[in-house]
């Protein structure tokens, strides 16, 4: 599944032992993916490989993080891996939707790669439909977290210190009070499946998600990436009025909502 980039000089495949794998779920508003774009762009991460997979719609374009003419012509595809060894961080970016019936095969292949590359833990950025919140969830923070039992032991205490809110479980059959409570993440794409699989495989995984709706999701991406930063401290969080100022917006975010207007319109 993982194909390393050929960096020349016969260099060995990159070693991710003990690294944190940060990845998005393709979810409502594409918030996880936007947040990952901010991380890759701000930390100026190096591409180290890609996933050769039949689970995602194919796409290709030129370098989405280009800053100048010289670095703008590197091809970029739907599932690529970037790394920053100094922070023991490896990031997977997913750029297209899943093909029908391919959620499960992708999750299985991904988790088996996580195990074989000996990643320390996985952090999944995701989102969920805001309109499906219950009365209590409508109040307070729209951010939630989830930890697999193995990671709970390691960082559960830190989440309490940060005063984070755990994602609530809901009744399996709403309206009937004595049913089991289950995890329900509408609009979350592979989030629930990947989380459940990680629990049963003993993988240390954290899910960070935000309730949102489709629209201009750039502000949601900033909120989610700052939430992530409270915990992982990827960049120095300065006390300032504008918490989005420390993140670098990639050049590919231009024209998200269409082209310029024809002058003939006026």
């Amino acid at each position, binding site marked *: 599944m993982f194909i390393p980039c050929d960096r020349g000089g016969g260099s060995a495949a990159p070693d991710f032992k003990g690294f944190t794998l940060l990845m998005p779920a*393709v*979810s*409502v*508003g*594409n918030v996880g993916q936007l947040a990952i774009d901010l991380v890759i762009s701000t930390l100026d991460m190096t591409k180290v490989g890609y996933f050769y997979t*039949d689970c995602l*719609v*194919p*796409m*290709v*374009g*030129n*370098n*989405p993080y*280009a800053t100048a003419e010289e670095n*703008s*012509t*590197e*091809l970029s*595809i*739907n599932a690529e891996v970037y790394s920053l060894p100094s922070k023991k961080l490896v990031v997977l970016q997913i750029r*297209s*939707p*899943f*093909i*029908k*019936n*391919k*959620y*499960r095969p992708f999750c299985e292949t991904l988790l088996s790669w996580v195990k074989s590359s000996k990643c320390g833990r996985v952090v999944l950025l995701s989102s969920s*439909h805001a*309109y499906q919140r219950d009365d209590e969830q409508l109040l307070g923070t729209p951010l939630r977290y989830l930890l697999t039992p193995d990671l709970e032991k390691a960082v559960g205490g830190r989440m309490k210190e940060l005063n984070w809110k755990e994602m609530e479980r809901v009744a399996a059959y709403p309206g009937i009070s004595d049913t089991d409570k289950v995890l329900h993440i*509408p*609009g979350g*794409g*592979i989030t*629930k*499946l990947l989380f459940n699989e990680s629990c049963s495989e003993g993988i240390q995984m954290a899910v960070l998600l935000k309730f949102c*709706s*489709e629209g201009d999701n750039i502000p949601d991406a900033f909120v989610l990436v700052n939430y992530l930063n409270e915990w992982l401290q990827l960049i120095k969080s300065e006390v300032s009025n504008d918490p989005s100022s420390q993140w670098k917006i990639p*050049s*590919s*975010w*231009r*024209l*998200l909502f*269409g*082209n*310029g*207007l*024809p*002058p*003939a319109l006026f």
Partner: protein
Amino acid sequence: MATFFGEVVVAPSRAGLDEEEEAREETPEDREIRKEIEKKREIDVLWTWRSGGCAEEPLVCSRFIVAIGRNAAAFLSSFILDSVCWEVVGVVKLWNEWCRTSSTTNVLPTDSFCLFYRLISDPTVLLCQCSCYVAEDQQFQWLEKVFGSMQKKGLQVTILSTCPVADYKTQESTLTLVSPFLRALKTKEFQEQVCCPLLEQPNIVRDLPAA
């Protein structure tokens, strides 16, 4: 979510989520149906130069030109292909909700087809005209089956395709653009001169040309 008229609708997501299906556990009947559909949607690549039973050696290919979509296929028909210099060597047989191709090589321009031609004077030059739509779940299969039959060392691939101007993202309005116009994407291994500007971000290519 509720709309102005008071009815409740499920909001479609840009992320292309298809959750209800994925969340349900598959029953044996579901699995049976899914496998039947998968079998129906399988792609067959039939090479005319191979007879059944002989060893499947890979086709030696130095240049492979693929035209995807009706416009690109028509371009090849009008300017490149003729029955004197090119011979048909293969066909792709597939079915999906949008089109069906057959294993016949005698096609009309209005049919949906996917044919392979070889230059008679240099049999390592291969051309593919794919005017049919290859669905999302078939694109990877198409790729593996077609390229799987080829020896890929030293192979140069050129992909021709078209996209609507309305999909092109640019600072000005597309009304003022002079169209049609060309753009290219190339791998870093491609060292030759490209005849037109490279595709600017944030434009992307998807589906079979991307695969």
